[in-house]
């Protein structure tokens, strides 16, 4: 199968000059923005994106066109924010878009801003992507100079201002209300919803937050139409999706696929299977926050929102973590529980205390100091966290914890019965992949 036919978002990833305005324009770039402003108008853009069925790629999969429709009619000041906080372990796709095709992100952001009536667009890039902040700022400067942004753009018909905002190291700023608070100059702590940001967000005004990959699809959709976009993917999961793949497979990295592709086919044809000497044990399909699947379960599912839900997990961010047989699942869950405990913003007791408990119990098990009751205790702590907090970070910790425990229980039981954990595997990627 020719895998390149599915490359909509990644079509310029192999070019050395894809990040330049001249190359982007020569490729038809900014035509969609011109058409949106000059011909279509905001309502028609919203309709086309709604018809395409494009779903948010930040994790929740909410239809973008529908979300845009939540901005109250006639709102005077509206803000648009692009979520490039990309901090979900296993995820590194937005980074590729910003690195190799920043103008597609800028054009998509500008069209999306236009569609919701925003005059200010903020691209929020995680602080760890320092070099990307520079690259995207350069591209934004080019877009200003070319008259696509700023005062006088489109003969005054649409004068969008665009800010590239650099985060400073906090996973929770990826949550949309945390992100908005961060841009306001506060701690990035989430708010209780409602009110939803689409009604009351940045500075109390309607604010739409979309993921980088979501907005990057918009120029293509306008250029080729919703019908063409729906030729890819399934009825309920239309289009293509970037998967960032990590772990000891032959071809890790960012791959674009039509949604609905069977995992087995993706694993064999796109990823080339496991690296030499490795055997597949488990797969986390959509970033560290979704439930893990066993190898057998993974092989029976397909990569779209519905199939993954039916398999008991989620598509999430498309951050696929491939776990080899040599890995100890309790060791891996300890790494993850440390992460969620570290990143809990501390506002909600169940999250702040619960993540700490989960981390400590798992650590204790691995030290050989566990007790058989600890497994039930882990479950009880999870029960006291899920669905009880301001934002879904607590659930994001519970989902891997519960699923690791459920699907790989014997490994936990052995430790609870007093076996000491094995030393961490000490191989290097080079040996793994050679």
């Amino acid at each position, binding site marked *: 199968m020719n895998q390149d036919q599915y490359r909509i978002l990644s079509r310029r990833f192999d070019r050395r000059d894809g990040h330049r305005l001249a190359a982007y324009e020569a490729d038809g770039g900014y035509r969609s923005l011109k058409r949106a402003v000059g011909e279509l108008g905001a309502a028609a853009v919203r309709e086309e994106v709604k018809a395409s069925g494009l779903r948010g790629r930040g994790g929740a999969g909410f239809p973008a066109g529908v979300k845009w429709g939540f901005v109250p009619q006639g709102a005077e000041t509206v803000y648009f924010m692009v979520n490039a906080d990309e901090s979900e*372990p296993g995820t590194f796709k937005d980074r590729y878009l910003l690195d190799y095709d920043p103008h597609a992100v800028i054009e998509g952001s500008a069209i999306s801003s236009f569609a919701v009536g925003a005059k200010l667009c903020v691209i929020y890039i995680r602080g*760890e992507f320092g070099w990307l902040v520079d690259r995207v700022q350069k591209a934004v400067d080019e877009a200003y100079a070319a008259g696509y942004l700023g005062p006088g753009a489109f003969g005054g018909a649409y004068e969008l201002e665009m800010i590239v905002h*650099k985060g*400073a190291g906090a996973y929770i700023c990826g949550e949309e209300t945390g992100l908005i608070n961060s841009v306001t100059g506060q701690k990035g702590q989430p708010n209780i919803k409602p009110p939803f940001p689409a009604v009351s967000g940045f500075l109390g005004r309607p604010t739409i937050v979309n993921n980088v990959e979501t907005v990057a699809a918009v120029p293509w959709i306008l250029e080729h139409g919703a019908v063409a976009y729906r030729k890819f993917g399934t009825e309920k999961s239309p289009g293509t999706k970037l998967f*960032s793949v990590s772990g000891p497979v032959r071809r890790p990295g960012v791959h674009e696929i039509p949604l609905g592709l069977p995992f087995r086919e993706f694993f064999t044809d796109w990823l080339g299977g496991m690296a030499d000497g490795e055997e597949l044990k488990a797969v986390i399909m959509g970033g560290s926050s979704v439930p893990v699947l066993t190898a057998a379960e993974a092989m029976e599912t397909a990569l779209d929102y519905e199939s993954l839900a039916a398999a008991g997990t989620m598509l999430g961010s498309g951050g696929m973590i491939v776990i080899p047989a040599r890995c100890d699942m309790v060791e891996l869950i300890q*790494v993850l529980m440390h992460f969620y405990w570290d990143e809990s913003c501390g506002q909600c007791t169940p999250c702040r205390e619960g993540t700490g408990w989960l981390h400590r119990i798992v650590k204790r098990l691995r030290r050989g100091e566990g007790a058989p009751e600890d497994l039930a205790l882990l479950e009880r702590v999870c029960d006291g966290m899920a669905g009880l907090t301001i934002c879904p970070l607590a659930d994001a910790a519970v989902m891997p914890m519960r699923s690791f425990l459920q699907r790989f229980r014997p490994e936990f039981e052995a430790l609870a019965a007093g076996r000491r954990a094995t030393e961490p595997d000490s191989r*290097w990627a080079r040996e793994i992949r050679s």
Partner: protein
Amino acid sequence: MSVPVEDGTGFGLGEQDAARFAGILARYPTRRSALMPTLWLIQDRDGHISDAAVAWTAAQLELSEAKVREVVSFYAMYRDRPQARHVLQVCHNISCHIMGAQPLLAHLEGKLGVRRGETTPDGEFALEGVECLGACGMGPCLQLGKHLYEHLTPERADALVDGLRRGDPPRPDTDRDLEG
């Protein structure tokens, strides 16, 4: 636009940074929303955000010092005290863990003669374990300043440290060899 270079806080910006600060104030819709970029401006110059810088920022943005300090301490990348010249931040999250983050940390501990979380006595290097850096498919990896170093092996890690010790400019391999 003139920005007071000296306002009683003992802190000031040079001409270029003052112009940058004015640009930030012009771009952001409220003074408070200019806080994060202002802190970055200061940290990029000084390496950390001092008490005087906090006082200056609070005065400029019409915020209490407590509000500024709260933000400095909330975000992991803002530093309130001087750092080692080179801070090596190794990702120890799940994908890198699978691909060898622990041996990389152990190797660097041996190479630098410090443990994770410590700084070499000469103040040249600090070694830290950090959460996912967004390079999961290219692990193990580390961050140094604005750049990522990926696909690390003992040899590549040694070469990086040796180069920095010699004073070579860091040669990031984050980005593929893109034009310009």
